[in-house]
């Protein structure tokens, strides 16, 4: 008797509208892998694209087919609209998912897809363009009755001076085309204002090709809280709660959690209402995030990220949903429905290739060993495997570790334990730094603000006990090398030490 495997026909049981058959993923790294997994569940064939530096990268092998799109430089590959559209046409892909970063918020990319009769998994290009312009987005928010940080759209010195006198220093100058912490400058006192205005406009013109700036009151101790929204082409809009992303280093988020600790349900309801109003006013479709700064009982609209966020898994773990599948459903003409009630707490941290003891300088190298944490409520979104190369060409996100718990303390302790199980040899990274932050009483007590790192973790060093252990490990490594016969039956990372004349008098 033979047992035949049952063919799994995802397309027949998933609500795929049959409008989409093949998805090109215009990204790399963990997010490309993550999107490919959901696309497969949704019943789609997948196409990976890759640069010359990524030919052996995990997303390439995970997809049903893979197409080389250019040289290692992002501008020649992952930012190369023509090459990606050509790859979609060549492979017969009828949809493109942009992931985050790279081209994900470039209206001209969404437009190029539309021009090629390819469905873009994201908002319409005109919506993206309006929200991508900070001044225009701010106007949409004001018109929709959403609170914004007090500010003024000017580069003119006398009105800037009047505004600053009214709200008090410090003030913040921002580039209209900036975002995510880029193109911002804090002005501490009146004497610096004139120079700062000129420099900001000049920098904005150089960095973004758009010299428009605006001025805002500087919030001294805000939290960063954002609302996840989903909108479909039938006018349905839903919110999937909030994420607190206050723990940032140089405006880059490193730890995110949901729900936001201590956020009252009244305040949450107000913020969700504001995010939905804003999304409705902007005719927003697909997944997006409205970011707010929160100080005391006030919240202020910051910007809309018109794409999937890096930190979306914390929302997925609480709501038991798959946001990429939701995106694909929306893109194929389906409807979003009111989400189930969220449960528990999820916390994510970003493991980056960087050296936290040396000014977070980016690290590169190949992964010589990887131990991955596991257990209930533990999710590791990563494209790393033993042998993976981390190159200097792209951002250094090695993976995201996300833990769920019935309450915040359970999620937090689980994440500390999971970080303790992680070992990534070969690429210097911030995992121990993250572990120490998440294990700290300041994080336990949720003393969250965007200054958390500056206040509590500015001069972080690895603990003395671990340095001792590391020194002993180095000595053991050297002595194993001196007696290779003892381990000759093994293929292991220690093998790399063979013939390494640590003890010898090398010339």
């Amino acid at each position, binding site marked *: 008797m033979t047992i035949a495997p049952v063919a799994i026909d995802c397309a027949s049981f998933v609500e795929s509208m049959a409008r989409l058959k093949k998805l090109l993923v215009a990204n790399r790294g963990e997010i490309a892998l993550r999107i490919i997994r959901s696309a497969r569940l949704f019943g789609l064939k997948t196409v990976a694209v890759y640069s010359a530096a990524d030919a052996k990268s995990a997303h390439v092998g995970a997809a049903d087919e893979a197409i080389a799109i250019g040289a290692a*430089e*992002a501008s020649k590959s992952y930012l190369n609209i023509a090459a990606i559209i050509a790859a979609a046409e060549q492979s017969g892909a009828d949809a493109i998912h942009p992931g985050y970063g790279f081209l994900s918020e470039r209206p001209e990319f969404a437009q190029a897809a539309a021009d090629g009769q390819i469905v873009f998994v994201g908002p319409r290009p005109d919506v993206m363009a309006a929200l991508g312009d900070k001044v225009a987005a701010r106007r949409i928010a004001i018109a929709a009755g959403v609170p914004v940080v007090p500010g003024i759209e000017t580069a003119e010195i006398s009105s800037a001076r009047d505004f600053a006198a009214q709200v008090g220093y410090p003030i913040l100058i921002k580039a209209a085309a900036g975002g995510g*912490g880029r193109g911002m400058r804090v002005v501490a006192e009146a004497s610096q204002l004139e120079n700062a205005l000129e420099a900001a406009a000049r920098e904005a013109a*150089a960095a973004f090709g758009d010299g428009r700036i605006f001025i805002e009151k500087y919030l001294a101790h805000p939290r960063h809280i954002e609302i996840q929204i989903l909108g479909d082409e039938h006018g349905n809009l839903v919110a999937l709660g909030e994420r607190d992303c206050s723990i940032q280093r*140089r405006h*880059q988020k490193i730890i995110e959690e949901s729900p936001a600790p201590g956020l009252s349900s009244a305040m949450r309801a107000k913020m969700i209402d504001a995010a939905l109003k804003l999304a409705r006013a902007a005719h927003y479709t697909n997944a997006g995030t409205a970011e707010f700064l929160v100080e005391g009982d006030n919240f202020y609209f910051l910007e809309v990220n018109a794409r999937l966020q890096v930190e979306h898994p914390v929302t997925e773990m609480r709501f038991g949903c798959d946001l990429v599948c939701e995106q694909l459903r929306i893109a194929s003409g389906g409807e979003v429905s009111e989400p189930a009630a969220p449960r528990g707490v999820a916390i994510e941290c970003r493991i980056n290739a960087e*050296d936290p003891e040396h000014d*977070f*300088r*980016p690290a*590169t*190298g190949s992964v*010589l*060993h990887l*131990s991955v944490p596991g257990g209930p409520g533990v999710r590791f979104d990563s494209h790393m495997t033993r042998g993976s190369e981390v190159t*200097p*060409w*792209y*951002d*250094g996100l090695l993976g995201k570790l996300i833990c769920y718990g019935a309450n915040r303390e359970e999620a937090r302790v689980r994440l500390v334990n999971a*970080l*303790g199980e*992680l*070992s*990534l*040899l*070969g*690429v*210097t990274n911030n*995992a*121990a730094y993250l*572990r120490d932050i998440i294990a700290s009483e300041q994080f336990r007590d949720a003393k969250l603000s965007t200054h958390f790192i500056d206040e509590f973790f500015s001069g972080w060093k*690895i603990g003395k*006990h*671990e340095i*001792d*252990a*590391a*020194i*002993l*490990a*180095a*000595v*053991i*490594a*050297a*002595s*194993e*090398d001196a007696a290779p016969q003892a*381990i000759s039956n093994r*293929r*292991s*990372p*220690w093998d*790399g*030490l063979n013939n*390494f004349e*640590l*003890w010898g008098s*090398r010339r």
Partner: protein
Amino acid sequence: MKLTRAGDSHEIDVELISRDGTTIQVRVGDREIAAKYTPNADGGGILTIDGRRYPIFGARRKDSILVSVGPASFEFKPAEAALRRRARGLAATTITAPMPGKVLKVLVRDGDLVEAGQALVVIEAMKMETTLAAESAAMVKHVRVEEGQTVDHGAVLIELSPPPAS
């Protein structure tokens, strides 16, 4: 043997005093540390010091020993490699771009004398600012870039020469 941690000039004097089965005795500076080391099937092992258990892995890359202790990663350089460099009087004769990016700030000028660890250039790539610093005392021979310039991976940003003998 003498080890230094990458990015740190402090030398650590270490000596394997004994290794008998799983028991090892190591001198670190003027301290003696007793530990137990049991290899695992995965190529690493468990190191136990004072009742604390650490999963460790190690490997060599070029003239470095790479070690992980749980989630913490370390790079050590045997002192010989450091000595070889010191013999030349300079940790490096050029400061190169570790990644393609844009020069945000140039903090020194031709002829400046700089100390080890002094910031020289700030470059930006993929939303990250990176400060490049002198690894040893040096004189700035030639600044080859200006602020705002885009540079490729490996591009020479600054040339250094040995500091004048004092």
